[in-house]
């Protein structure tokens, strides 16, 4: 039974990649190969970045005799990467899966349904964790010490990290599900994205200093980890062929997973059937309804769709957020930026060009209208059956795009021109 359910989950995952939903036919072989190549390319780039990061830690830590700390840091980063990358998918797959009612109506214990969903997620955590730990392992093997046993133990630790990340993702996914049942999904997604981007840009901008600090403060970090985060210490030592500590680390990961699984199994039925539907009825007041010309009606509909769709908003609304942030940051950090620009000879004359380039880049990320026709999806019949021409529909979508982007970009350009003119 579990094998059937797990293979169903994997098939659903891959079918989503190779079948074009709208045309309901298989993508061509070429498209599948292209997607596979793109995935491999992205993985290679991320793994390369991680490898480069760990290269700057491997030899310094080895010279300080803190090889275990090297692997503990890799484990910590792998854990964070896996959890961040999978928490939303975990919440969606465990609690918002469309086939939950169907499977729950069958003679399948809820804990088995839960397990069948967790196994593919485990594979995902293995992949995300592997993107960090495998490069770290390879870098260590090439530049410090190569050992077959060590390699195998390090890969075992990767499995432990994936299991631990799964346990943490499940807990966070459960909390997220509770939160989303109370909050507006789009708002929650945008909030998550803003926080995530904030942290990402901060870490990215401070990456050099952070790496230097990790090397310079290694003794303090080692002391903190070995005292307060003992499982990571055990993992680090386990990667250096300390069998006892490796088993302890794997045991801790297994126990955490088992505990989370037990809690979620006990609450799965209630959580999976918890409705986010509030069905709060308000009194209908027809007097407040307003009329609008057909094109404006479509623009209004586009706005509601944009704000009501987390995926649409977070993918295509980021540019709007960035333009607003640029306007504010450009004014606040004016002096710092001008002094930095003045250090490069002749660069001050290029500031107007730079502003245009940055603004153009941001505008290029705001392609709000581009996917709006395909995003009609199964609702396309509505516009097709209404007495409005294709030209008017496209104009309305374009008008919505302009209304969202032109005022904001205009203000941004004007403010920056004033500040740096």
């Amino acid at each position: 039974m579990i094998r059937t359910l797990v293979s169903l989950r994997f098939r659903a995952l891959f079918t989503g990649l190779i079948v074009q939903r709208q045309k309901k036919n298989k993508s061509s072989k070429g498209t599948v190969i292209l997607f596979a190549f793109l995935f491999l390319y992205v993985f290679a780039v991320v793994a390369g970045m991680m490898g480069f990061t760990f290269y700057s830690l491997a030899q310094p830590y080895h010279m300080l005799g803190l090889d275990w700390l090297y692997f503990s840091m890799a484990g910590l980063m792998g854990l964070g990467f896996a959890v961040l990358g999978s928490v939303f998918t975990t919440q969606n797959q465990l609690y918002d899966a469309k086939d939950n009612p169907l499977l729950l109506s069958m003679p399948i214990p809820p804990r088995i349904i839960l397990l069948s969903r967790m196994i593919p997620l485990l594979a995902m955590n293995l992949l995300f964790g592997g993107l960090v730990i495998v490069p770290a392992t390879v870098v260590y093997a090439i530049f410090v010490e190569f050992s077959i046993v060590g390699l195998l133990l390090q890969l075992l630790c990767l499995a432990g990290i994936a299991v631990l990340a799964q346990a943490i993702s499940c807990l966070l996914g459960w909390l997220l599900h509770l939160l989303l049942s109370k909050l507006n999904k789009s708002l929650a997604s945008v909030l998550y994205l803003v926080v995530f981007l904030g942290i990402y840009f901060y870490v990215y901008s401070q990456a050099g200093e952070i790496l230097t600090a990790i090397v310079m403060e290694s003794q303090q970090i080692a002391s903190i980890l070995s005292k307060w985060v003992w499982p990571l210490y055990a993992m680090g030592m386990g990667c250096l062929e300390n069998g006892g500590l490796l088993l302890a680390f794997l045991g801790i990961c297994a126990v955490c997973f088992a505990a989370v699984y037990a809690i979620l199994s006990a609450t799965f039925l209630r959580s999976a059937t918890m409705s986010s539907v509030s069905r709060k009825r308000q009194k209908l007041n027809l007097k407040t309804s307003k009329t609008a010309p057909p094109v404006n009606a479509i623009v209004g509909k586009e706005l509601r769709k944009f704000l009501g769709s987390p995926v649409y908003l977070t993918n295509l609304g980021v540019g709007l957020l960035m333009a607003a942030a640029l306007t504010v940051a450009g004014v606040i950090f004016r002096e710092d930026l001008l002094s930095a620009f003045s250090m490069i000879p002749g660069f001050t004359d290029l500031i107007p060009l730079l502003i245009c380039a940055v603004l153009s880049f941001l505008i290029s990320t705001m392609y709000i209208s581009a996917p709006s026709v395909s995003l009609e999806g199964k609702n396309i019949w509505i516009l097709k059956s209404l007495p409005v021409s294709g030209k008017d529909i496209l104009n309305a979508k374009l008008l919505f795009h302009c209304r969202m982007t032109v005022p904001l970009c205009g203000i941004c350009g004007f403010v920056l021109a004033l500040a740096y003119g």
Partner: protein
Amino acid sequence: MLRIEHFTKTYRSKVAVDDLTLHIAPGEICGFIGHNGAGKTTTLKACCGILQFDKGAITVNGHSILTDPIACKRDLAYIPDNPDLYEFLTGIQYLNFVADIYEVSKTDRNQRIAHYGNLLGMTEDLTLKISECSHGMKQKIALIAALIHKPRLILMDEPFVGLDPIASHQLKNVMAQHCAEGGAILFSTHVLEVAEKLCHKIAIIKGGKLVASGTMEDVRGQASLEQVFLDLEDTL
């Protein structure tokens, strides 16, 4: 009102509808009956301009759906079998959206929304998001949206699916009233008893071909519609 002449629609190599001819005059309710995959939905969608077609002509009040689709659509309304409405809108927002497209005045739309909302027991539920509505509630919203601009021709694909008994009864009254006022209706259904009671005309389609059409008396004769349908399925 609606003239379908030698309508043919092919999906790749499969002929979904083959040389279908059907006329519906003002004041007529025509029931469109056929097995699953016979071509009923394809025909209805082509009539309201959702699907392009290969051969034939479809006209609504003299306007061709291919060359003058906007004029055709002003006079008609379409209700699909599975109403995929805008989930991000509330019921009332959706109705106002449709009313804006049809340029229905504020007074008229409010009056019609109140009337049909009360008739179908949906008034308070119109403030809910469509994503929070059940299938039957969505069906009712789609129905009100179809009636809001007082179309001359209504095309419905299995309209009774998902409706509660009261709403079904009210819908039959609305259909009868619509045709009494000179409108026309073409609807597909699997509920033959409803078709027998409601329809002036019947069209039976099998494998994309029209196998029987005419008034209820001509098609049914002394037998029941169910018997006629089953006999046709067996013989052809």
